């Protein structure tokens, strides 16, 4: 099944606007994933929110995935939703540790980034209140990293 027309417009607009900073566009099971260079991470989100054809007004989710064998080990992943156009988009970027915060664009990012920081140890530059949220403040390590054992550490 081809992807929604409105999404094709979004993808071509992104390619026009960001050019080489769009590293790849993937379609899989009717979902579109766009991978960006981390330098344009904020601008890309802001553009997607403010552009009329994109109109992604809601940040559904922000999370990460760990690939420890890579140089820049983390993928930061966001899911966007447009309530008006009923389309969704997934954005990805790669980082070793630091990534700018999306809090100025969407307030939802506050807790989602705190959780990602808590479980992965990714530092969101400019986040107003970056502290652990699910684990206790004196917790050592970041459990969702692949090198963190599933049974935890002996104390």
């Amino acid at each position, binding site marked *: 099944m081809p992807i929604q027309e409105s999404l094709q417009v979004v993808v071509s607009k992104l390619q026009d606007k960001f050019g080489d900073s769009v590293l790849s566009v993937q379609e899989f*099971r009717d979902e579109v994933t766009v991978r960006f260079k981390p330098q344009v991470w904020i601008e890309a989100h802001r553009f997607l929110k403010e552009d009329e054809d994109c109109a992604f007004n809601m940040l559904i989710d922000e999370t990460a995935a760990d690939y420890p064998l890579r140089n820049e080990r983390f993928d930061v992943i966001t899911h966007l939703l447009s309530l008006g156009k009923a389309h969704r988009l997934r954005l990805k970027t790669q980082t070793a540790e630091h990534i700018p915060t999306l809090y100025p664009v969407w*307030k939802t990012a506050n807790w989602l980034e705190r959780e990602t920081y808590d479980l992965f140890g990714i530092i969101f530059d400019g986040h*107003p209140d970056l502290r652990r949220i699910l684990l206790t403040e004196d917790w050592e390590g970041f459990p969702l990293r692949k090198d963190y054992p599933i049974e935890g550490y002996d104390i």
Partner: protein
Amino acid sequence: MSETPTFEHSETYKRSSERRMRLNMGPQHPSTHGVLQIILDLEGEVVMRCDPVPGYLHRGTEKLAEERYYNQIIPLTDRLDYVSAFNNNVAYCIPVEKLLGIEIPERAMWLRVILMELQRIASHLIWYGTSLMDLGAITAFLYAMREREKILDIFEMACGARLTYSYCRVGGLLADTPPGFEEKVAEFVKDFPKAWKEYTDLVSKNPIFMDRTMGVGVVTPEDAIDMGLTGPSLRGSGVDWDIRKNEPYYGYDLIDFAIPLGTKGDCYDRYLCRMEEMMQSNRIVEQALKFLKPGPVKAPDPKITLPPKELSMSQAEAMQRHFYQVIHGFSVPVGETYGKIEASKGELGFYIISDGSSHPYRMKIRAPSYVNLQSLPLMTEGRMVSDVITCIGTIDIVLGEVDR
């Protein structure tokens, strides 16, 4: 604990003085619906700063899922939003089935719809009972439990469990429902409007209740979208968005139902939305029953679904298949997908990255309660302590899902 205010409610913050008092509400407080701690900075009775501290129920579901076979994750999902476990099961199965590229049989699909909507009613009833109990109305709780009991009986009939069902399987359902199931559901559907009228008569026009909820915890539509609210909390603010209508799945587009919307975005509107949703769910169940035809409930893919028990007891191949699946699970193609449903609390999504093995490489749960709870400071800062209780009640959180 950092002393900087989290949000831009700093006008109220600036007025603060030495009279400020810090109050720890929870983690063991009867009206926080579980183990949620809320740090309140008070000035007199006015909340200057509200800082929810979730995490007391964190069990590392996402980490555990990385080491389990796909079907073994289903019992973990039961324990997220434990008052609507079936919705979690379905929300988890959708992306896995999408990754595998399989369709579930029609009967399984309609059974899922029926059970999801019944579960929504049960979940809203729990919300109705507990949130009113927070406000001091104990009678409502007893009424709500009565109908919920009937729904739990239906679930018990279908799968044997009353709270944590694990009734879904990747590719369909564990087994078909026993004879008499449809009659029992039909009976519930017939009786429910009468009971629902009792609930609304008891509470909706109660002057004390209206005083406590009207104009309290107002969220504007712009704020609601910015905060990522979903579900009845979003619709209470008047934003017309329901995944069942706007991005239909599972034949919801064949069903006639309405999406109740609020206008003011206060606690009373959220209350009315949830109440009306129960009736709409009842309508959906009534119509879905007509679509329910006899047939298989498991996808006919021998690699994914277990063979019928009689076959695995009598045929060698079926038995091998059974053992192989239990021991090795099944592998899922490389890729990533996000599946979502309109659960009783809002958009419940599972994002799964598969590396081609029989475990997910990464599973992220997009829990509606977690995101919705984030709006509590917005609703309560600058208001009275007693309003905090009202607001927690109408956001409708389940801590199992917040903390995961």
